[in-house]
C-alpha cells in the first residue's frame, strides 16, 4: 500500500501578505497585490508593474551578516519555511532529522544577486563581491533551509520554472513513498529579477494594467514573487505526534504537451491528460472534484487551453466547479507559484472558502466556466485540484482532500 501523506504546516510570503493569516485574509477579500516595481528600475519597460513583496523587514528576521549572504529569494524561502515549520509544531516535537528532507521548486532563484554581480562586472564600473555568486545555483535556497534547521534527509530542487514548486510537492511526496523520509519541507521560493521580467516582456506576455485571468480583456501575466512552503508528513507520523493537520495530499500527475517551447497545446489535450493522470493516481473520480485552483496566467492562450482541458475532463459538470485564478492578486510567482497556490488550495479545503478571480468583468466566450468572479465563495469542499503548467508544456496537477481522521 502507498503511504498516506498529510499537510501539517504552511508558510507564505507574497505580495498580499507575509504570513499565512495575512495572505489568506487578503485572498478571500480579493486584494490586489500588483503595483509599481521597486526592486529594479522599470522605466525602460513597456509595463512597470509586478506583484512585489512589500512591508517585509529583513532585519526582523535575519542578522546583518545573514542579510549580506542571503539573496532575496533565500530570505523569502526561509521566512515561509520558519512559519510552516513552527505551525507544524516541528520546532517543539521531537523528530528524527535524518528523516526530514527538503525539496523546493526554483524559477529564477537568486539571479537578482547574480545580475548585480554581472552588471557591475560587464559595465566595469565597480567590483561586486563574488559572494553574490553563491546564488548562481538554483539549489541555494533549498540548502539554506536544510542547513538552518539541520535537516539531514533527502534534498533536491526541481527546475521547471512555472510548474517547479508543484513538481517539487510531487517529488517530496515520492520521497515519503520511497521510505526515505517521514517529513518533507516542500514548495518553492522565487524573487523578481530583470532577466525573467524582460524575458516575459520580450515574449509580449505581460499585461500593462493588471492581471485578469479568463477575462476577455486579458493581455497577459503579471510577474510576482514570494514563497509558499508546505510541510508534507506521513499520516501515521503526524497522528502519532498529534500534529495539526490541514489537509491530505492524495496524489499528482505530471506530463508533457510535447508541443511547443512556450505555447500550450491549444485544445487542452495536455491539460486533460495531466488532470486525468492526477485523478487516477489519487484514486479520485472526476465527479468528486469540488474546486480547482487554476494555473490561470491570464495569457490569451493559457486560459483557453486550460478551460478546454477542464471541459474535456469534467464535461457538462465543468461549469459547476468553482475555479479560482489567484494570480489575479499575487501575480505569477514563477518558481513559487505552485507552492503558494497549493497553500491556498489547502486553506480552501480547511476553511471552506474559495478565493476569487479578481478584475473579472468581461466574459470570454472561449473561457466559459465558473471562475469565482471578484467575490470569494463559501462552499464545503472535499476534493480540490491545483494546476500548474510551464513553458514547454510541462504540466503538473496536484490533488488534495479535506482531512478526515476516520477516512
Amino acid at each position, binding site marked *: 500500500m502507498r503511504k498516506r501523506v498529510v499537510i501539517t504546516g504552511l508558510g507564505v510570503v507574497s505580495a498580499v501578505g507575509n504570513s499565512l493569516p495575512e495572505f489568506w485574509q487578503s485572498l478571500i477579500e480579493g486584494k490586489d497585490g500588483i503595483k509599481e516595481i521597486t526592486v529594479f528600475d522599470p522605466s525602460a519597460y513597456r509595463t512597470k508593474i509586478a506583484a512585489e513583496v512589500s512591508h517585509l523587514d529583513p532585519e526582523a528576521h535575519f542578522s546583518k551578516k545573514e542579510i549580506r549572504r542571503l539573496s532575496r529569494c533565500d530570505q523569502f524561502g526561509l521566512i515561509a519555511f520558519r512559519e510552516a515549520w513552527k505551525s507544524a509544531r516541528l520546532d517543539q516535537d521531537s523528530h528524527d532529522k535524518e528523516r526530514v528532507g527538503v525539496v523546493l521548486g526554483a524559477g529564477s532563484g537568486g539571479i537578482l544577486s547574480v545580475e548585480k554581480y554581472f552588471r557591475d562586472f560587464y559595465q566595469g564600473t565597480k567590483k561586486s563581491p563574488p559572494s553574490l555568486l553563491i546564488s*548562481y545555483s538554483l539549489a541555494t535556497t533549498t540548502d539554506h533551509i536544510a542547513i538552518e534547521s539541520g535537516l539531514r534527509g533527502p534534498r533536491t530542487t526541481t*527546475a521547471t520554472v512555472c510548474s517547479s514548486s508543484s513538481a517539487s510537492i510531487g517529488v517530496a511526496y515520492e520521497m515519503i513513498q520511497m521510505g526515505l523520509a517521514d517529513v518533507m519541507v516542500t514548495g518553492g521560493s522565487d524573487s523578481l529579477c530583470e532577466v525573467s521580467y524582460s524575458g516575459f516582456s520580450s515574449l509580449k506576455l505581460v499585461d500593462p494594467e493588471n492581471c485578469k485571468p479568463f477575462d476577455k480583456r486579458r493581455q497577459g501575466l503579471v510577474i510576482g514573487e514570494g514563497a509558499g512552503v508546505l510541510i508534507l508528513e506521513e499520516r501515521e507520523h503526524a497522528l502519532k505526534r498529534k500534529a495539526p493537520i490541514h489537509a491530505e495530499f492524495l496524489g499528482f500527475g505530471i506530463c508533457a504537451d510535447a508541443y511547443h517551447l512556450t505555447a500550450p497545446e491549444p485544445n487542452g489535450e495536455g491539460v486533460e491528460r495531466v488532470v486525468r493522470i492526477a485523478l487516477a493516481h489519487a484514486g479520485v473520480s472526476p465527479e468528486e472534484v469540488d474546486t480547482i485552483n487554476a494555473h490561470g496566467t491570464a495569457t490569451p492562450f493559457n486560459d483557453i487551453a486550460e478551460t478546454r482541458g477542464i471541459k*474535456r475532463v469534467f464535461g457538462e459538470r465543468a461549469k459547476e466547479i468553482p475555479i479560482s485564478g489567484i494570480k489575479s492578486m499575487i501575480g505569477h510567482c514563477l518558481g513559487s507559484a505552485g507552492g503558494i497556490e497549493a497553500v491556498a488550495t489547502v486553506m480552501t479545503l480547511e476553511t471552506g472558502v474559495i478565493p476569487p478571480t479578481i478584475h473579472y468583468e468581461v466574459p470570454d466566450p472561449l473561457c466559459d466556466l465558473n471562475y469565482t468572479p471578484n467575490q470569494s465563495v463559501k462552499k464545503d469542499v472535499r476534493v480540490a485540484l491545483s494546476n500548474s503548467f510551464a513553458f514547454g*508544456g510541462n504540466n503538473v496537477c496536484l490533488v488534495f482532500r479535506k482531512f478526515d481522521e476516520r477516512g
Partner: protein
Amino acid sequence: MCVWCLGSLMKEDRIQGVGQLRNAECGLRNNDSFRNPKSEIRNREDHRVVITGLGIVSSIGIGKEAFWENCLRGTSGIKPIRGFDVGAYQSCLGAQIPEIDFKAFIKPANLRRMDRIGKIVVSSVRLAIDDSGLNLKGEDSNRVGISIGTGLGSSDTVDQFFRSLLKEGPIGAAPLLFQTAVPNAITSHCAIEYGIKGVNITFSHKESSTEMAMVFAYHLLKEGRTDIMFAGGGDELSEPLYHVYSMLGVLSPGRRKGIEGMRPFDQDRNGIVLGEGSGILVLETLEHAKKRGAKIYAEMAGVGLSGSIDGLLRYDLKGDSIARAMSLAAQKLGTVDYISAAANSTPDLDRAEALGIKKVYKERTKEISVSSFKSMVGEFDGSGGVRACGLALSLYQGMIPPTIGTKHLDPQCDLNVILGQSKKMEIRSAILNGCSNGGSNISLWFKNYSSP
C-alpha cells in the same frame, strides 16, 4: 475506450469537432485499476527496473563505443580551454566536448531553436534511443517519460540574454534566447523532438542533479506509473560558468599551490577541472524490456538519499551522510564490488567520500574497487548521467576504467583505487555516488543483470 473519457469525449466531439481520441491519448490504460480507482489504485506495484540504452556525449567520446574505448585506455578529456580567453583566471584547463555536427542527431528545422546545451542533451537522447533499439512510434507515448538533471543548464544563453539586456535595454531582450534560457527548456526540447508525452521533469541541484533525475525515474518505473524513462542529463562548460567557478575558488589550482589538474584521492589534489557533457540512460521496467527483447546492460536496484549540513558550499565533511546514502541504496551491501566515486579532486569531498566508504565497509573496504570517472571527463554538475552510463558499461563488460591523474594516494583516502590501468573483474553490484556542495548526497545501486 477508457470509460472515464467516454462521456466527455462524446460531448467534445460534438462541441469542438475534436477527432476521436484513442484510449492511449487520454493517459490512462484500459485496465481494471483505472475502472475502479477506489479499490485498487492505492496498491503499489513493484517492478524491476533495467538499463536498456545508453546515450553519451562527452569530452572523451560521442556515443558509447568511443567513450568506452577511451575510458578503458584512461584517456583524459582535459585540455586547454577553447572558445574563450582564460587570461584573467588562475586556471586554463577544461574537459570540453569536441566540435559536433549536431545535424547528424537532430532535425535541422528544430536545431535552430536549441542552444548548445539543448543540442548536447537532445543528441545524447538520440544516441540512447538508437542504442536501446526502441521504436518510439510503436510505444504508448504517455507511458514514455523523461527526467533530466542539469546544474546550470543554459548558463551561456542566460548570459547572452543578460548582456543584450544590459547593452540595449528591454528592447534588446530577445524572446528566442529567453525561451531557451529556462532550465527545463532542455527537457522540453527532448520531449518535442521525440514526442515524449509522459512524465516530464527537470532537476537542478548542483552536483547531484542528474543522480536525482535517475532516482525519480527509477521510482516511477518501480511503481508502474510509466514503462520507459529517459533519465540523466548534463551541463555545458561556458565562459560565465568558468568565471563563477573561478571566482568561488573551486577550480584547480585557483589560489592554491600545485599543478592544475584532476587527481581524485591524490594527496596533491587542489580543486576541480570543469568538464561538460551529457549522459542518458534508457530505464525500463523488466517486463517491458523483456517483451521487446531488449539488450539489458544492468539492473537499477536501489537508491539512497541523505543530506549533510556542513555549510552552503561545503561537502559532507565527516562522510556520515555519504555513508548513509550508500547504505540506503544497496540492500545487499555485501554484494557491492565496485564504487564509482563522486570524488572530484577537491580536498574535502575526496576525503569525506573515503571516510564514508570506510564507515560502511569497515575491514572489507580494501576488497572494494573504487574509481572516479571525473578524472577523465572533469567535474560538472550534470556529470552523473555520463558516469552512470560508464557504470552500466562496467557491469555489462566486467571492466573498471582507471582513475587517471592520481599518483600519490592520500593516506586519508586509503581505498582500493584503480589507478593507471583498467581492471577486468566480474562485478556483482556497484554503487554510483553523487555528492553536491551544500550537502545533497545520492547513491544509486546498480546490479549485474546476469547475476542472481
